[in-house]
């Protein structure tokens, strides 16, 4: 077990493409750290540099206080779970799991003992003498995990280990991974593009975009205090609603109304900003009554679509606006549209989704009276995407070991 420290780690490929830019990240001993971001953001490259499968172009990587930049993977004492599992097809499950120990020259009895122990943990005991080709997807995934845990390495590196499983199995394995990690207490770096996995698994989450670290923090921290537009839009499902807004004379003008800027704007002068509000910060006025209305904003909207999930009710409506445009949003649109149906960030078509109480009576095509909790409003600079509202003193900026 060990901590992993990335100090200005950069990866430039032979063709000049900079996949990871000056990455600084401290992963504490025993911590479960998630690297998350859309495809091509450099998260896998970063993981592969930690594993020693990619050279580090510049910067320093330490595992357990030892600089390992020039160490081969075998000298780093780490175990990796690959996205496609990479099981050795010519070996049985037992041989697959014991391969690393065998290479290390561990004696036969000890290998058997460790492999059988791991097999019990992963419920693979009856499959030990089968070959990977005869196993189901979930079993193969568990063998890949088993291959990592028998070694008791300094750290586990996992590269989208659940992305090849079907939805139900993925949820099941997610809890399994989480349980294993806390049980073993081994430092773990886990790469995923799925923000749900990131939010549910990690002690801390590092969001990446285009090779650069955007924000590192606990899931709750990322959710409540996104540092920029990208993190705000990436974390959370359905995604945060964005709408154009304007600061003028101590007021925030939103397409749905006007509120006092208060300390929201963080001392910023008049001008255009991007406002963000999460779906659950809307509510049907009929449901909450007059209770909270004094701190929010009541407005009317024509409901385009209602999706009832039983526990929640999603109402989609649109607002009049010229559209919110930002590079960071464009990046998100590409990645998330298909995945979450986050149509609300489609350019020039401001659709807003509100998560309402299931008892709400809003109907498709009717005008509903909605309430927005503007205390939860996020404001962003439209140029840089930086948040104007994120708490400056929050843990999100603090990238050191706690």
């Amino acid at each position, binding site marked *: 077990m060990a901590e992993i420290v990335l100090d200005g780690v950069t990866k430039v490929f032979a063709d000049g493409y900079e996949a990871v830019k000056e990455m600084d990240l401290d992963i504490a001993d025993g911590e479960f750290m998630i690297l998350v971001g859309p495809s091509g953001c450099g998260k896998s490259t970063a993981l592969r540099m930690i*594993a*020693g*499968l990619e050279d580090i172009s510049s910067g320093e990587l330490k595992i357990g206080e030892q600089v390992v930049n020039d160490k*081969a*993977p*075998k000298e780093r004492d*780490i*175990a*990796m779970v*690959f996205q*496609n*599992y*990479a*099981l*050795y*097809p*010519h070996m049985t499950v037992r041989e697959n799991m014991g*391969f*690393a120990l065998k*290479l*290390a020259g561990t004696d036969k009895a000890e290998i058997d003992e460790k492999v059988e122990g791991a097999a019990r943990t992963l419920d693979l005991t009856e499959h030990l003498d089968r*070959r*990977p*080709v*005869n*196993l189901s*997807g979930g079993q*193969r995934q568990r063998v890949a995990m088993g*291959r990592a845990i028998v*070694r008791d390495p300094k750290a586990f*590196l996992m590269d989208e280990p659940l992305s*090849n499983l079907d939805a139900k199995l993925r949820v099941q394995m997610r809890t399994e991974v989480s349980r294993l990690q806390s049980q073993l207490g081994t430092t773990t770096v886990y790469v995923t593009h799925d923000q749900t996995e990131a939010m549910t698994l990690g002690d801390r989450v590092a969001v990446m975009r285009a090779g650069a670290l955007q924000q590192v923090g606990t899931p709750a921290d990322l959710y409540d205090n996104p540092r920029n537009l990208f993190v705000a839009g990436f974390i959370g499902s359905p995604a945060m609603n964005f709408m154009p807004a304007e600061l003028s004379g101590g007021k925030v003008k939103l397409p749905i109304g006007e509120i006092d800027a208060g300390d929201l704007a963080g001392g910023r002068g008049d001008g255009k900003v991007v406002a963000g509000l999460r779906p659950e910060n809307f509510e049907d006025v009929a449901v909450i009554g007059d209770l909270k209305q004094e701190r929010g904003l009541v407005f009317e909207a024509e409901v385009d679509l209602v999706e009832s999930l039983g526990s929640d009710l999603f109402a989609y409506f649109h607002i009049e606006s010229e559209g919110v445009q930002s590079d960071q949003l464009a990046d998100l649109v590409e990645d998330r549209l298909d995945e979450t149906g986050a149509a609300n960030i489609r350019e020039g078509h401001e659709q807003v989704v509100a998560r309402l109480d299931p008892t709400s009576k809003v109907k498709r095509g009717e005008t509903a009276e909605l309430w927005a909790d503007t205390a939860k409003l996020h404001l962003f600079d439209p140029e840089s995407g930086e948040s104007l509202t994120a708490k400056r003193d929050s843990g999100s900026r603090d990238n050191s070991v706690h």
Partner: protein
Amino acid sequence: MGRGSRDYASWTVAIVLVLVFALIPVIWLISLSLKPPEAITDQRFLPSEISFDNYKSLFEGGISDSPFIKPLINSIVIALITTVIAITLASFAAYAIARLEFPGKRLILAGALAIAMFPPISTVGPLFDMWRALGLYDTYPGLIIPYLTFSLPLAIYVLVAFFREIPWDLEQAAQVDGATPFQAFTKVIVPLAAPGVFTAAILVFIFAWNDFLFAISLTSSDASRTVPAALAFFTGESSFTQPTGSIAAAAVVVTVPIIVFVLFFQRRIVSGLTAGAVKG
């Protein structure tokens, strides 16, 4: 009759035609080898009486006197040594070509192909002179070296194709598991490329086994003469009889190892050995 069964029928006809075309000479050869010497010219396709005299004559007199036993041993040893060396070298070369980026990679592949295309006959004259000067004439290495020259490129090509099919991740998994690059190669890549290795081995073996040109040009005695060349030196029972029967018998005998070799390795050439390695 559906389209499928019509296709099936026409394929059957085509395959039967090809089989007949390929097998008639073989049957003819077997038939000749079983005829007694005086019946060779009886113009019958199948022998009227079966005799094993031709086979007996091949092995009569033991190693020293038989015209066939020593060449057979030469053939087997030379072909096996060629195969082992060619496959060992070719798998290293093919691995480097399939996995690594290095300057001159294309040149090496193109060079290998050019050598494989080079007409062997044009090298025989120079080789003859060189081998006599170097003392390699009429020795095992004298044949093994030219065989390697022509079979290595072929083996490299076959193996590169197979190595490229093996998922990169497997090797990286092995490295993370603590394998040195050489261990990853021998314990993971080679076993998985086994079908390719066996395919290449069969091709190299057959090439070395069948060669006549180098064998006839670069040998002068039973010290290293292989079967195809030795057949040319067969004599009849008297100076007036053709050695047709013994040649036919010898030809049948030399076919057997090839068939055994192919049948033995065919079971190993199962595609889909890598199935289950990675998802998808």
